[in-house]
């Protein structure tokens, strides 16, 4: 098992290195002189030369990469062109908002998808199953930003129940915070719920036909006990893996959701950075998102290994 985990961790390190090369090369591909870009549009020749000196842009590209990576590993991702704040600090301020949104959305998704998936699997081919599958199909087909706009139109504009946009820190006003996070979490959670529901249903159908479930039934256990204690616990294992792989979709979704509901999070930061051509921020955010995706999936794989001993023995969880 240690050997498997070590190999899995090794793969993650290699992946992270490749990601860093892609991000580094990507930024170098921006047309124009990087020193001019970093210095901003109002810099003079001396300012540009100063930047070139400061960032070592006269050195060969591989040397630049190693220096950049050494700084990045220590948490120094440069500073924003616009605000002159360190990128890591800017991200640290914005991140909690996005994390709150992601956690609430995950909660919404699991709360909808797991019960619906279980019911659909237990009552397979019933009206409930067809209904759940239909709703799930609609869930993956509906653009979540449109769902958000329609919710704002109904709940905020027509009914006036919830504020349409804005953010209140949870420490200042917990209820106000929740009122403003409710719609964004629903919107972001809906798409995830659709995917999770399908997975839960498929996993449960497979598990419910397993021998140990038949044994549990044969020894006279009631249906709820069989479903919850025996089937669900095993059925949820693959669902957890899917959750890890869905983190990317969740991050993409957060970008759009924050844009619609004007939440000053991570996603809004990157869109603003693109429009203001704030390259260090874009670079930093892209690098951090991709790295966290790799780390989250490493964690998911590790926990999966702990939960499911068969993987350890086979030892070939190829790639993902």
């Amino acid at each position, binding site marked *: 098992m240690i050997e498997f985990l070590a190999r899995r961790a090794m793969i993650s390190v290699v992946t992270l290195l490749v990601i860093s090369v892609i991000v580094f090369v990507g930024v170098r591909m921006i047309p124009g002189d990087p020193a001019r870009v970093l210095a901003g549009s109002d810099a003079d020749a001396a300012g540009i030369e100063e930047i070139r000196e400061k960032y070592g842009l006269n050195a060969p590209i591989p040397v630049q990469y190693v220096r950049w990576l050494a700084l990045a590993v220590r948490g120094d991702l440069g500073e924003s062109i616009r605000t002159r704040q360190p990128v890591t600090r800017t991200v640290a301020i914005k991140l909690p908002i996005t994390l709150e949104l992601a956690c609430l959305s995950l909660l919404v998704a699991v709360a909808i998808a797991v019960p619906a998936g279980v019911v659909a699997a237990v009552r397979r081919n019933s009206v409930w199953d*067809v209904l759940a*599958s239909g709703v799930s199909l609609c869930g993956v*087909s509906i653009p979540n930003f449109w769902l958000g*706009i329609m919710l704002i139109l109904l709940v905020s504009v027509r009914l006036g129940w919830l504020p349409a946009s804005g953010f209140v820190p949870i420490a200042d006003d917990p209820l106000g915070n929740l009122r403003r996070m409710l719609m964004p979490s629903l919107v972001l959670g809906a798409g995830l719920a659709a995917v999770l529901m399908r997975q839960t249903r498929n996993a449960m159908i497979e598990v419910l036909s397993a021998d140990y479930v038949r044994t549990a039934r044969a020894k006279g256990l009631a249906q709820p006990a069989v479903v919850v204690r025996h089937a669900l616990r095993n059925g949820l294992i693959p669902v957890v893996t899917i959750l890890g792989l869905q983190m990317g979709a969740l991050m993409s979704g957060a970008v759009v959701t924050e844009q619609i509901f004007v939440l000053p999070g991570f996603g809004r930061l990157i869109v603003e950075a693109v429009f203001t051509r704030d390259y260090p921020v874009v670079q930093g955010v892209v690098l951090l998102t991709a790295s966290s*995706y790799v780390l989250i999936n490493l964690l998911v794989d590790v926990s999966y290994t702990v939960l499911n001993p068969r993987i350890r023995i086979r030892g070939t969880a190829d790639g993902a």
Partner: protein
Amino acid sequence: MAREAATVASLALPVEAPAAPAGGWRRAWRVGRKRPAAAAGAVIVLLYAAMAAGAPWIAPSDPTRTDWGQIRKAPSRAHPFGTDDLGRDGFSRVVWGARISMQAGVFSILLAILIGVPIGLVAGYYRGALDQLIMRLTDAWLAFPFLILAIGLVTILGPSLTNATLAIGLGATPTYIRLTRGLVLSTSAEDYVHGARALGAGDVRVMGRHILPNIVSAIVVQATVAIPTAIIAEAVLSFLGLGVQPPAPSWGTMLNTAQQFLEQAPWMAYWPGLAIFVLALSFNLAGDGLRDVLDPRDS
């Protein structure tokens, strides 16, 4: 998703037979009767395609023509979908939007297939160090959440429909590399592949003539799932201002504008969104049906 083994088998049988065009239509008709939802989806997708192709004749007016006397007018006989903040006809813009959406959806996935399938073929066929290298690159590629990757690319290349299509296509590519590689790994072990090799067929011939035809249906099925996702992705990029630029009528761009006038002109937000939703849903429904026809194993 109720499907009985008997039905699937009876549907799958004609696929093996050298079907004449008439037989193909008859089969489509039979599948359609068994699965009305899938048939309806396919018909709606075709209607959208017709709308995209025939936009100049279907749209009553130029989608970019502004009319200062008709700003944000509610739906009426002259403007069934209302008008927008510049007095442009909403219906005409939705019709022309189909063109952009279909283009972005189909071309991006085509690009992903053109890049991903050959790479996956090579990785799965030769295995070894080359495979390892390709898979590590694919892992890294997959680690960029789609929108983050697209945002990065658009930052480098600049926002436009072409670049959005490129970004979506590149984002979808790793899925095809992995899918193809997995399919090749299992297909290479088949007897007919060994047979072809024993008869002296070269690598390219084995890959192109013996492996590829057997994995094509799985790739097509994956495409029907990927296209609606790509269509939504184009709308998202345009909504964020990173895709199609105004005044071109993209559904995403239209929704971006509509959000600023939700209280005064809610109709501006209804139709473009509904157009995306119905198209994506129809693609998904048709894809489900196609999966049953082409890939009867997967049930």
